[in-house]
C-alpha cells in the first residue's frame, strides 16, 4: 500500500498549502473577532488601546447570567427529549421492514433542509392555537424539532455497524426487549447516542431564529441577547459571550472524545 508520506515533495507541498488554507478559512474569522472581547473600548477596532476583562465582567450582570441559565435549561431539556426521540426513531428506521421507511426518514430529517424561518413561522401559528407561544415547553418542542435529526443521523450511522444478532442472543438468554435494549444495544451504540446528544445540545444552545418567533420577553437566551445586542447597543459583550459559549462547547466535545476513546 502506498502512503501519503511516499509522495514526492512537489506533490505534498501544494497539498499542505491547500489544507492550511482550508483550516485558515475556518479559524481566521474567529481569530479576528474573539480578541475584541479583550479590548477596553466599546468599539470593534484594532489596535487596542488597552487590554481589559470588562466585557467578561458585564456577563455577570443579571441580564446575562439569567440568559445563560435559560440557555442551559432549554438546551438540557431539548437534549434529553431529542436524544430519546431521535434514538428511538433511528432504531425503528433501522428495521428494513419499516413501512414507507425512506419517506419517513426524509420527513424526519426535513428540519435540516427546510429554512428555519419557515418552520418557526409554522410553529408560531400552530402554537398560537395551543397557547404554547412564549412558554418554556414551546421553546423546548421547537428546539427538539431542530435537534432530533442530528441524533437520528448519528445513531443511524452507529446502527449500520450494530450486529442485531446480539439482540437475538440476549433474547435467547432470557432478556426481554427493554432489558436487552438497556444492557446490550444502548451500551454498544452509546458513542453514536452521545455524539447525537452533543450536536442536539449545540443546536439548541446556538439557536436564535426559533427563539425570535416562539419565546417571550421572559425567555432570554445567550444567542437571543447577542442578536438583540447587535441591533441595539452593539458592544464587545456579545463577543465575550461567544468566547464563553465556544469554550463551553469545546470542553463538552473534548469530554465525549475522551469518553469514547476510553472504551
Amino acid at each position, binding site marked *: 500500500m502506498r502512503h501519503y508520506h511516499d509522495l514526492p515533495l512537489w506533490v505534498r507541498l501544494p497539498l499542505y498549502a491547500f489544507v492550511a488554507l482550508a483550516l485558515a478559512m475556518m479559524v481566521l474569522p474567529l481569530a479576528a473577532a474573539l480578541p475584541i472581547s479583550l479590548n477596553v473600548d466599546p468599539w470593534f477596532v484594532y489596535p487596542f488601546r488597552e487590554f481589559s476583562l470588562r466585557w467578561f465582567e458585564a456577563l455577570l450582570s443579571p441580564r446575562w447570567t439569567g440568559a445563560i441559565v435559560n440557555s442551559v435549561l432549554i438546551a438540557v431539556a431539548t437534549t434529553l427529549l431529542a436524544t430519546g426521540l431521535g434514538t428511538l426513531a433511528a432504531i425503528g428506521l433501522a428495521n428494513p421492514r419499516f413501512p414507507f421507511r425512506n419517506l419517513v426518514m426524509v420527513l424526519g430529517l426535513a428540519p435540516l433542509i427546510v429554512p428555519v424561518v419557515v418552520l418557526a413561522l409554522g410553529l408560531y401559528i400552530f402554537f398560537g392555537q395551543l397557547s404554547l407561544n412564549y412558554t418554556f415547553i414551546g421553546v423546548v418542542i421547537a428546539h427538539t424539532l431542530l435537534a432530533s435529526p442530528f441524533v437520528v443521523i448519528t445513531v443511524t450511522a452507529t446502527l449500520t455497524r450494530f*450486529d442485531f*444478532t*446480539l439482540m*437475538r*442472543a*440476549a*433474547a*435467547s*438468554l*432470557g*432478556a*426481554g426487549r427493554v*432489558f*436487552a435494549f438497556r*444492557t*446490550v444495544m444502548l*451500551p*454498544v451504540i452509546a458513542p453514536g447516542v452521545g455524539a447525537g446528544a452533543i450536536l442536539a445540545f449545540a443546536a439548541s444552545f446556538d439557536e436564535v431564529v426559533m427563539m425570535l418567533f416562539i419565546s417571550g420577553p421572559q425567555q432570554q437566551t445567550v444567542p437571543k441577547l447577542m442578536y438583540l445586542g447587535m441591533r441595539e447597543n452593539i458592544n464587545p459583550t456579545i463577543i465575550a459571550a461567544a468566547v464563553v459559549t465556544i469554550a463551553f462547547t469545546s470542553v463538552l466535545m473534548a469530554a465525549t472524545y475522551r469518553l469514547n476513546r476510553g*472504551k
Partner: protein
Amino acid sequence: MIGAPKEVHVSLSGVLKTYDGQHYVVRDLDLEVYKGEFLTLLGPSGSGKTTTLMMLAGFEHPTDGAILLDGRPVHNIPPEKRNFGVVFQSYALFPHMTVAENVGYSLRVRGTAKDETARRVAGTLEAMRLSDFAQRYPTALSGGQQQRVALARALVFEPDLVLMDEPLGALDKRLREELQLEIRSIAERFGLTVIYVTHDQEEALTMSDRIAVFNNGYIQQIGPAEEIYSRPVNRFVAGFVGDNNGLDATVTSVEGDLAQARLRGGAEVVARTTSHTRAGAPATISIRPELIVPLKEARPGALSGTVSNVVYTGDQLRIYATLPGGDEVVVKRPTSATDVPTEIGAPVHLYWDPTSAWALDGQ
C-alpha cells in the same frame, strides 16, 4: 444414546414457513428429537435447515404447524421465555462485557444472587477451559476461544435444549475438527439435547447421533450417520453426504431386492432396489468410491473402462476411470494398496459387491 430408552423431547409437526405465501422455505416438516440426542440438520444453503432452527429458537414464527417441548406447545412463546441455549455462527458475544459478564448474563437476567452467579460462571468457564480469560473482553480472544465463550454462555443456565447455527463455520479446518470433538464430548458430559445446523457433511457425520438431510424445504432422509452414508434413499442424499458415484441407467429387470440396470454405454450392473426402482424406469446407480475395487484383469460383473486420471492425496489414491458410455467413475484406494492400475490410458476393471450399490431415483 444407543440402548437408552427414547423419550421424545422436542417435536415439530406439520410445520410450514413461507414469507410471501407462494414460496415455502419449510414445508410439512415432521421431526422428533429425543432427549439427550445430538441431531444435525444438514443441507445446502436455502434448504430450510436454518429457518427450522430459527423457528425452534423463536426468532421466526411458523406459518402453520406446531412445535412441542415435552408435549407442550412452545411456538407461541417468545424466545426469551423458552429457556433454549443458542449458539450463533457469528458468536454474537456482547463486545462491551467481559467473558465472565457474557457468560453470567442469563443469570443476571434471572436475578440470580451474586455469589451463586459467580460460582456457576466460574464452574462453566472451567469446564470450557476458559478460566484464564474470565476478565478479558471478547475482542481479545481468538475465534476458537470466542466460540467456546458463546457455548459457555448458552450452557450456564441449564437450558432445556441447545441450538447451534453453524457454530464452527468461521473457523479454519484444524480448529474446527478439534472443536467438533470438544462440543460432542461436552454434550455427552452435560447430557444435552442438541440441534445442530451445518452444511458440512463431514461435520455432520463426525458429531451426530442422527442426521436430518434437508433440501428444498423437505427432510430428505433422517437417521444415524452410518445409515445416511451407506443407505441413502435418493440421489440428493447420496450426492450431498460423502463422495459418491451416480451413474445414469435404465432399470431392465427387478428380482427380489436386486435390480438389473443398463448404463449409457450398454454395460449391465446390479444394485439394490429402493422405493424408486421400477422396471423400465430411469435410475441413478449409486456407489461409494471406496467400495469399488479396481482390477487389472477382467472378471464377471466388473465394468471395463480406462484410467483417465490418478490423484495422490496422501492417505489415498483417487483413480478416475472413464466408461465406454462417457461416464466418469472415481475410485478411492489406500496408498498402500498394490496391484492397482495407475497408468493413464491403461484398461481398468471396476468391481463392487452388488449389495453395496443402490438403484436410486433417475434424472
